[in-house]
């Protein structure tokens, strides 16, 4: 039997791996632009703080690893971008910087740097901020209020806190799609998020085998265990659009470095991710514990790969023995 040997990340076309990271940054751009329409220029500045500080820290960290400071490899920019996109528009500028510092120096560099990290650095940075500054992380300004001084913003109740307190009723789908509710910078414009997902899927920068099971399991959990009293449609809509669940599914769970490489492994990974994220939301301490769920999930990535590969190999050999092809 002839085995083809390619180099990771096993792309079929002759495509540079940096295009995957560039695609993610391109996908983040309209989200930030949309947030700027609601809140003024501040979301853009938060995003720039996140990206630039992440790249700076990555350069310093690569010196410790004795690798060239690889800004051309884009992973630090993506980490910074994802972290900033989950920040509240009224987040102080030191928050994305602190999150990026933790993400790079405690999650990425100690494990070997770009391409070798076991845990998703963006999820780690977000976990750090959620744990330590959860008050500020989850105060979102009401939409359509330009933000000047962050100490004087009009706060709104995010969907996540409404769901958690049980006070969520129904929202109009049009409102949810446009993003006319309080939430983080990059995660409220649901219509644009779906467009980003389609773009990334067709560019093969994220894997459909991870994303679809994730969304399916989250939907199933929302149907079976609704936190909203007005029917399962509202529950599904609100659960999927609240917090940063959709954003995490598209950008964080599908990260090619930390997710499994085999298609069946990815399906298990997405499904397990969905269960963990929904559990963290309903039974966890914070209104959105997605980042912790993803960190736990990252540890299972090699196990899912191995499990699914063995399952398929054994099924195939069993079937061949049954048919008499193999002894």
């Amino acid at each position: 039997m002839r085995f083809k040997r390619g180099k990771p990340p096993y792309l079929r076309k002759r495509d540079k791996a940096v295009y995957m990271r560039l695609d993610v940054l391109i996908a983040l751009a309209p989200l930030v632009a949309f947030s700027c329409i609601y809140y003024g220029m501040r979301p853009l500045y938060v995003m720039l703080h996140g990206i630039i500080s992440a790249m700076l820290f990555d350069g310093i960290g690569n010196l410790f690893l004795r690798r060239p400071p690889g800004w051309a490899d884009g992973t630090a920019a993506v980490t910074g971008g994802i972290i900033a996109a989950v920040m509240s528009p009224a987040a102080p500028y030191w928050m994305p910087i602190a999150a990026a510092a933790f993400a790079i120096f405690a999650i990425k560099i100690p494990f070997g740097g770009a391409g070798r990290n076991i845990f998703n650095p963006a999820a780690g940075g977000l976990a750090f901020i959620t744990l330590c500054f959860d008050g500020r992380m989850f105060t979102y300004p009401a939409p359509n209020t330009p933000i000047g001084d962050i100490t004087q913003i009009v706060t709104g109740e995010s969907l996540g806190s409404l769901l958690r307190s049980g006070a969520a009723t129904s929202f109009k789908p049009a409102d949810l799609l446009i993003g006319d509710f309080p939430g983080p910078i990059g995660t409220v414009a649901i219509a644009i998020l779906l467009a980003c997902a389609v773009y990334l899927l067709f560019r093969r920068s994220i894997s459909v085998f991870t994303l679809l099971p994730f969304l399916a399991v989250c939907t199933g959990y929302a149907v079976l265990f609704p936190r909203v009293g007005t029917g399962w449609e509202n529950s599904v809509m609100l659960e999927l659009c609240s917090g940063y669940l959709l954003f995490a599914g598209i950008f964080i769970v599908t990260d090619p470095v930390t997710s499994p490489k085999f298609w069946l492994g990815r399906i298990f990974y997405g499904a397990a991710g969905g269960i963990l994220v929904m559990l963290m939301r309903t039974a966890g301490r914070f209104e959105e514990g997605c980042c912790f769920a993803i960190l736990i999930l990252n540890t299972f990535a090699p196990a899912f790969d191995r499990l699914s590969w063995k399952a398929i190999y054994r099924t195939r050999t069993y079937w061949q023995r049954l048919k008499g092809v193999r002894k």
Partner: protein
Amino acid sequence: MTNSHQSMKPSGIFRDTGFTQNIVLIQLIGLCPIILSGISLKYGVVLTVCTMLVQVNISLLMSVLGGRIPDWLQPPVCAIVSAGLLLGAGYVIGQYISPELYAGLDIFVPLIAVSTLVTYRAGGFAAHNHPGAALADALGASLGFGVVICIVAALREIVTFGTLWDVPIGFEPIFARGALPFVGFILLAYMAAVLQKILMVSRMIREPRPDSRDGDSTNRDFFAEIEHIGDIENDEDIADPDKIPGSGDPARS
């Protein structure tokens, strides 16, 4: 790296457990009190003193009597004697030094009785060696532990409470959750890395780098050979069908 030392002189043993193979940073023994209770310099010092008290006495005891006690009986004997010592120490701290301190330390003073730090060195090393070596080992272990816990506790106290030894030092507490365990883990990780670097540098200074024609160089960077495997910076030759062996016409290869 376990129960044998590179040199059997007491000073060599002391340097080994305390520094070159630091009991906490390299052998990873006794992490629990540091991570959970090493949040204030006072706690750190109290735990160090209690550990040293227990460690020295148990090591001397095991060194003298250890040969006569069967293996399976050594841990219970260590635990009971340590518990007795710590009962006395706890009473002294609670009554004469500070009841709040003892209450704040909660379970970590009694926990030293069953701590890995004590039983590992006592049963592993002290039981089979003469009292001088056992004493050096005990002092090295407890002082090694003490230095680490005091540094970690001081840093965490400054960052979390803005005080050092309960004296405000004018540093605003920037990070109210510094008493959480993850900060301890990360601080320990970085300290271990710094220690490894110091040891590597001192080894390279003492033994000059051998000839590169030698196959076996102990000072060579471990990652030099495997460093570029899986690198995603090498984008140019990814999955080029012309370069993959065996993917062409089967008759041709």
